[in-house]
């Protein structure tokens, strides 16, 4: 190889490196801009009073978003309670029965479910639950959100279980273990970190969903703990406040957005941290 080719190769290598770094940097700029913009406008309105007090009636200045924070945690919590067990079971099925035709069909359906726009899922929940009950309710919001979370839990469970070495499973079979205990005592514990991470990503995803809640959980001025009644949530409150004509509400929408971003970011970071710490 002559010197010229080598020089050209070294130059090309450098060029590629520069491109990779440049574009990875460019891609995170919007994220930083969003966080910066929201923080700058929202952070000054956040204080304990804003977090722990109820909204003031329309037209009055001040008040907090306590009911929306509580509502978000309840609705997302119930959604997670629905999506996690079902998601794990389906994930186990997909990774354990790879050869079956039916598995392929389930896989395609899960992918499709993931691709359905969240507003459509909201409409379905409205038709199935809100209309028959003749009432907006927190539980209908939870169910809609659980549909969005489900594919995330299924996929992360399936992926992490595929990583469990065959040798480990065979060792369990060779000891005469029944299948259900192999799943419970060997497979799921081996994949627990991955499943947890997937679950956390799912939770942080649905925490910010607004569209499925518009005509399910609906929103509520007051603090409500009854799952069968309308309940306020942070994203819904942001939607209502941001589209209102009041300056004070606009500011509160930014403050609520800041809180939402902080919650979602910390859940994601916690998931990352767990993944690093417990990875085998």
């Amino acid at each position, binding site marked *: 190889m002559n010197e010229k080719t080598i020089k050209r190769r070294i130059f090309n290598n450098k060029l590629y490196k520069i491109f990779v770094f440049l574009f990875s940097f460019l891609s995170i700029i919007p994220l930083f801009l969003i966080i910066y913009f929201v923080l700058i406008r929202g952070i000054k309105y956040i204080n304990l009073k804003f977090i722990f007090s109820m909204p003031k009636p329309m037209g009055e200045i001040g008040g907090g978003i306590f009911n929306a924070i509580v509502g978000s945690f309840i609705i997302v919590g119930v959604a997670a309670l629905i999506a996690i067990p079902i998601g794990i079971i389906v994930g186990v099925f997909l990774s354990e029965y790879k050869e079956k035709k039916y598995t392929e069909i389930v896989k395609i359906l899960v992918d499709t479910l993931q691709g359905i726009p969240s507003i459509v899922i909201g409409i379905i929940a409205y038709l199935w639950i809100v209309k028959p009950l003749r009432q907006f309710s927190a539980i209908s919001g939870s169910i809609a959100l659980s549909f969005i979370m489900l594919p995330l839990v299924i996929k992360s469970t399936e992926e992490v279980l595929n990583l469990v070495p065959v040798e480990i499973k*065979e060792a369990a079979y*060779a000891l005469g*273990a029944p299948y259900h205990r192999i799943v419970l005592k060997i497979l799921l514990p081996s994949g627990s970190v991955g499943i947890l991470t997937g679950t956390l990503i799912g939770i942080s995803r649905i925490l910010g969903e607004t569209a499925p809640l518009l005509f399910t959980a609906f929103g509520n001025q007051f603090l409500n703990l009854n799952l069968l009644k309308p309940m306020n949530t942070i994203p819904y409150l942001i939607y209502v406040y941001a589209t209102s004509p009041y300056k004070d509400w606009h500011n509160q929408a930014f403050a609520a957005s800041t809180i939402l971003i902080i919650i979602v970011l910390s859940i994601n970071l916690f998931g990352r941290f767990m993944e690093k710490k417990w990875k085998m």
Partner: protein
Amino acid sequence: MENVILKIINLNAYYGSQKVLKNVNLEIYENRVTTILGPSGCGKTTLIRCINRLHELSPGARIEGQILLKGEDLYQIEPMIVRQKIGMVFQKPNPFPTMTIYDNVIAGYILSGIKLSKEEKDKIVEESLIKSGLWDEVKESLFKKGTFLSGGQQQRLCIARALAMKPEILLLDEPTSALDPVATSIIEELIIELKKSVTTVLVTHNIGQAGRVSDYTAFFYLGELIEFGKTTEMFTVPKSKKTEEYLIGKIG
């Protein structure tokens, strides 16, 4: 006088349409070490996986013929029970990564949902680890993860895990192929020591190992049992030309 514990009669094993064991007839004697010897792809591993019925877990796998454990047809018993009576140690050490050393030893009981008192558990753990020669090395760290041990120690942990179920037969599938020479010789000594309490079937392609540890050897080639006999006799005066060629390194 040798006691037959396991009798394999006209065994054929298949993966899909591929026949990997051809009409195998073999007797395994109680409290002896029997080596299944042969080059890669001769069906050694398939044979022992038929004995503890792991073979049937592979897609498309099936067998014809009979395997009798003390006169009882293994294929008429629940596979879970067969596998508790016939323990197995694999090529690569595979302790359960989420379990402590202690739990790994009694994993067979945990996984089968057999309830044991604290004293029973302690006793089984200590006995099994003493038998597998690991007790002195790990007695201070029983509640650490098994995956922190060295490869050789992990393999002895796997042997302890198999012995804890008090199996009648112990199947060893090339147990030293992933280990260094020192760890290998420790395990070979252990195999000889274990003869007192358990019948061992050892799969290996290592002629030296077969010579060092086994009483009987069965030589397999391309899915067929070529020759079976006392190891000392077979290694000095092989009856078959194929065996001789393998022993002197012409095939393999």
